[in-house]
């Protein structure tokens, strides 16, 4: 409070008059909309793929993860089967791994929370330039990348996502779907053991014979870069693939 009575009031009046002429902070909502932040968690929505079918696999993981039980699903899945995965919520991670194992034959590391190592991007940039930064050539890009780095580092996937404009999730999905693509260096022993455990007996032999029948051993391996043998014998050293040539 100042010594001169009324000075504080006068200062305040001057301040409001100054603000009177300043630009306004209002956002006229229906016409102008703010960008939602990339991490925004908004209203839940089921997505459709390009054929118009629901992408939801009815895995019920969302329903179990929802702490306030606003997601509640029941009934049939997209293939018309009554399918329910109901269990304790903490089995979420286990079942996710199980699902990944079922789909690709090996556990998929969860890298969402983990720190990842940087890579030297020059080689990757060269690969991307070769494929014209086109997300349609994603499989080729991934294969070349794996040939270059020995596996698919997370940093490389992120860079590919950034440069091609494809979503990280799609690239990750592609990388985890194809069995000849590796997300971790093939020298990792526990992984190898887990893979060997998972692809036990019948499946392994069936897949091996299937591959042999399909590709005839050589032709696709040469054109696609890394050898399928890399996936079948994961103990081999990185960079041993013939794709450098």
């Amino acid at each position, binding site marked *: 409070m100042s010594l001169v009575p009324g000075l504080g009031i006068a200062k305040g009046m001057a301040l409001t008059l100054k603000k*009177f002429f300043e630009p306004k902070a209002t956002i006229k909502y229906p016409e102008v909309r703010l960008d939602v932040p990339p991490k925004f968690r908004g209203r839940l929505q089921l997505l459709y793929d390009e054929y118009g079918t629901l992408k939801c696999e009815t895995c019920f993981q969302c329903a179990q993860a929802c702490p306030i039980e606003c997601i509640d699903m029941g009934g049939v899945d997209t293939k018309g089967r009554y399918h329910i995965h109901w269990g304790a919520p903490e089995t979420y991670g286990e079942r996710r791994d199980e699902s990944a194992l079922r789909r690709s034959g090996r556990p998929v590391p969860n890298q969402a929370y983990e720190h990842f190592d940087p890579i030297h991007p020059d080689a990757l940039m060269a690969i991307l330039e070769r494929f014209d930064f086109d997300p349609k050539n994603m499989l080729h890009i991934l294969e070349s990348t794996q040939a270059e780095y020995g596996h698919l580092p997370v940093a490389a996937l992120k860079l590919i996502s950034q440069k091609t404009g494809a979503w990280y999730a799609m690239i990750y999905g592609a990388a985890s779907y194809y069995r000849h693509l590796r997300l971790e260096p093939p020298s990792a022993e526990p992984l190898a053991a887990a893979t060997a455990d998972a692809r036990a007996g019948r499946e392994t032999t069936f897949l091996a014979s299937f591959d042999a029948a399909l590709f005839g051993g050589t032709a696709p391996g040469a054109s696609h870069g890394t050898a399928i043998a890399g996936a079948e014998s994961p103990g081999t050293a990185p960079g041993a693939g013939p794709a450098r040539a």
Partner: protein
Amino acid sequence: MTAMARSFSRLTLGGKILFTLGPILFLLTIGLVLLIAIAGKPIVDFLATNIWLVRFVVAATAVLLMSVPTAFLIIYMEMKIIALMNLRIGPDRVGPFGSLMSVIHGLKVLAKEDFSPTGADRLVFTLAPVAVFMSTIMALLVLPFAPGLFGADMNIGLLYLFAVSGLSVVGLLMAGWSSFNKYSLLGGLRSAAQVISYEIPLILSVVGLLLLAGTMSLNQIVVKQGGWFWNWYVFQQPLGALIFFIAATAEANRTPFDLTEADSEIVAGFATEYSGMRFGFFFFAEYVNVFVVSGLIVTLFFGGWNAPFPWPWPITLNIDPGSLGLGLLFAILIVPPLLILALAAPFYLGRSSMPWWQALIIGFVLFNLLVIVAITGWAFVSWNWVAGLMVFLGKSYLFVFTFVWMRGTLPRVRIDQLMGFAWKWLLPASLLNLFVTALALVVVNK
């Protein structure tokens, strides 16, 4: 009777209005014709001899009609200016820059249920808004808007004005008491205490001015401030003007003295239980009151309808349309279309995408604007009451802006601080002002 009521209830809304108003209008017309036929001459004679009566009726009607647009304008100003000071945009949807928002508010208020709470004293509850509104309107009646443009030039105009504006507290008290709500009661009692306390410094601060002016007629006070702006009484009575401004703020229940409707303390004060048009009356009365107070400050201290300086080059327009003869008719017929075409042409030629009719509409609007400007300018120059009205309104709305600006800035004072300020500071200061003025007059006159 029942059958009539039933068939009436089956009518549409338009039918109901027609069936109610039609016979009444018909009877009124017949009565009027009969009245003129039988007693036309004496009535006209009576009115001719008592022209003040006609003048009064016309003035009262004009003031009533004026009050609602004034309230709309001030409500819009309040919404918009406070919004801009808050770094908001404020109303911007209805009308240009949202200027019709307050009209929509008025319509909304009309459409709301006219509700009176159980336990309320219905008669007093209904009459309270009327009392408040009437006191405001009656105050508006004596304000000199322009030379010759006032409801009544009373020689006790100022006294009348204070008396009448003090009446509003009766209405507020009625509202507070009859609502059967403790918040309303607190609000009503607060307003009674506040308005009555601030009447005293309000009147005492003007007494010095009255000594200088020697009259209580508002018209005469304004006339005495004519000429250059240093003749305004604010330069002879600065302390009086300041006290008057503060006391008038309290009298009009404006921030920082808006204790009667302090929403963070007593919800809405006396108006808590009001809704619909009864609340609308309070609302209108409040904002018309702001205009009255601003007009009063302008009238008393800021020269009323006098411009700040006398216009040095008097213009006299000698337009005699009759001298054109038949040419006048041609001018009226030919000039507007040509002007419209001339105004529309640049738009049509300048923008290839614009269809001709749009260009014509633009030309028409521009032409109308031109004509309005021309007529206003002509009226401004030829009739001094137009100029006076504009000056008066301009000054008044400057003060309205100040009131709104204060509302946007200041917090509210407490009730004991309010009373203490009135009795401990404003009253002695106004007495001091009176004493000094009287002393100065005595010295100067000797």
